[in-house]
């Protein structure tokens, strides 16, 4: 597709200039909130991470360890209290240019049809003509099994279908960085698995860098190249586990002993910390 190519060549040349460096570097990142009571609440404690272009990184950890905050800071939606994020050789000071986001809720605009919810991403960025936008959105809808749903309104779709639309919206401009904040957390198990497969397939074809926050160890292991375990309040990186399992994995934890072994490893790292907090932790092994 034209628009996607335009955008991706720009990004690739930018990435090439900084060859040898990580695409995304998080340096000495700390963050504190000021609660309404005036009390200062630390959320993140000195995070250092290097993430390569096209890498799929999952963040797992108990609730309240600052995973979501970390995502927002990386995307430039929140300014950190200390430290910095370097994206494609530049310090992040505001929302980064080629960013895609998927939230836990679909966050679709109820007055726009499915198709116009997806093309919103392009029209807000001034990318492509109306016809190009439409074609590209239809192509994406087809790839997530929603061909012909373009003219419906979001409320006419099921939760899983809505989240697929939200995924299309996040990918239509071929983002360099895709942030996903527990995107499948609100879905039933079967739908979740289907969406995990869709996501892996689309990630493989576009290869954006993905930061994926989840509670679900099984999900993290199935999808990610690296699982970063965050623990504590404030959150800190406790482990960084590379998942050396060939693609496409098809989100098939049940029949893949390799993935199961990794899931056990991650759980073993997390479990001692889990008991200290009241967070929810699900493990689908």
């Amino acid at each position: 597709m034209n628009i996607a190519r335009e955008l991706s060549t720009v990004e690739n040349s930018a990435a090439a200039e900084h060859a040898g460096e990580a695409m995304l570097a998080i340096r000495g990142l700390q963050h504190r909130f000021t609660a309404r009571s005036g009390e200062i609440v630390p959320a993140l404690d000195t995070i250092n991470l290097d993430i390569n272009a096209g890498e799929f990184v999952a963040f797992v950890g108990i609730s309240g360890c600052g995973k979501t905050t970390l995502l927002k800071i990386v995307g430039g939606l929140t300014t950190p209290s200390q430290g910095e994020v370097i994206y494609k050789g530049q310090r992040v000071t505001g929302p980064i240019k080629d960013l895609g986001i998927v939230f836990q809720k679909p966050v679709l605009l109820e007055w726009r049809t499915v198709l116009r919810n997806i093309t919103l991403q392009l029209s807000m960025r001034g990318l492509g003509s109306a016809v190009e936008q439409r074609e590209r959105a239809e192509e994406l809808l087809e790839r997530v099994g929603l061909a012909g749903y373009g003219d419906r309104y979001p409320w006419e779709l099921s939760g899983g279908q809505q989240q697929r639309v939200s995924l299309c919206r996040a990918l239509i401009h071929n983002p360099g960085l895709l942030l996903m904040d527990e995107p499948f957390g609100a879905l039933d198990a079967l739908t979740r698995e289907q969406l995990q497969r869709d996501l892996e397939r689309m990630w493989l074809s576009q290869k954006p860098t993905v930061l994926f926050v989840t509670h679900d160890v099984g999900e993290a292991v199935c999808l990610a190249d690296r699982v970063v375990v965050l623990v504590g309040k404030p959150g800190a990186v406790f482990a960084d586990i590379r998942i050396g399992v060939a693609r496409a994995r098809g989100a098939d934890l049940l029949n893949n002993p390799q993935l199961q072994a990794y899931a056990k490893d991650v759980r073993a790292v997390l479990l001692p910390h889990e008991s200290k907090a009241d967070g929810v932790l699900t493990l689908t092994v």
Partner: protein
Amino acid sequence: MTSTQDRNNLGWLAPAISAVRIIAFVIAVALIWELACVVLKPPDYLLPPMHSVLFYFSDQWPSLLKHTRVTAYETLLGFSSAVVGGIAAAYVLQRFPRVASLLWPSVLFAQITPKVAIAPLLLLWLGFGIESKVLIAFLISFFPMLINANAGFGSIDEETAELARSMRVRPWTYFVRFQFPHALPRIFSGARIAINFSVVGAVVGEFVGSDQGLGNLVILGARLLNSPLMFSAIIMLMGMGALFFYSVGMIERWTIPWHVSYRRASQADNDAAALHDA
């Protein structure tokens, strides 16, 4: 299959059915009124029989229409400036929080001032023409517009705001593409209240002092003990108010067909279409 079709047919007939209901209600009231006059025989200046009001109404129709036009004009002018002004003020208040903290006290102060009580003052300042009536209609319906638009603009969820920021949307685009459509249901709730308030404002203005309009006819009827005139003017006011209220509802339905309150009808259409496909 049949039940869906029934529902669908009902959907088509629904406006006709409700119209029939309203007409039946009006006829029933008229009959009771007429009957009460026959049985109780109240003096004419207290309660004239229905038929004499109807006779007066049809006899004076051209004149009634002329006065209705004046009141309608005042109402619509006051209402539309309240809609535009209320939305604009709400935009300024939420876009510039510092201005907002400065202005809210004066907005609240303006609201606690009883508009009806200051109507004579406004007439004194603006004269007996339609300007004073338009201003009263505006003042009385401005606040419900402002409050509802403000609540609508403010109630957009954090994720949607973040989504917009991730797309690097500019403030004005954010307002036009995200906040305004999001606020439309609330704005229409405000407009439904404001349209009725505007009628009240125009009539109050005419009560205080005017030589035309339906409010003026009511006062005139009272002074002359001409109750058929009063009742005719009141009936005209009710008809006008109903027409305006209904029009706002139509515009709302046409503008925000996606809103929760209008979903059931099109959901039924979809069900029917799905069945048809199958």
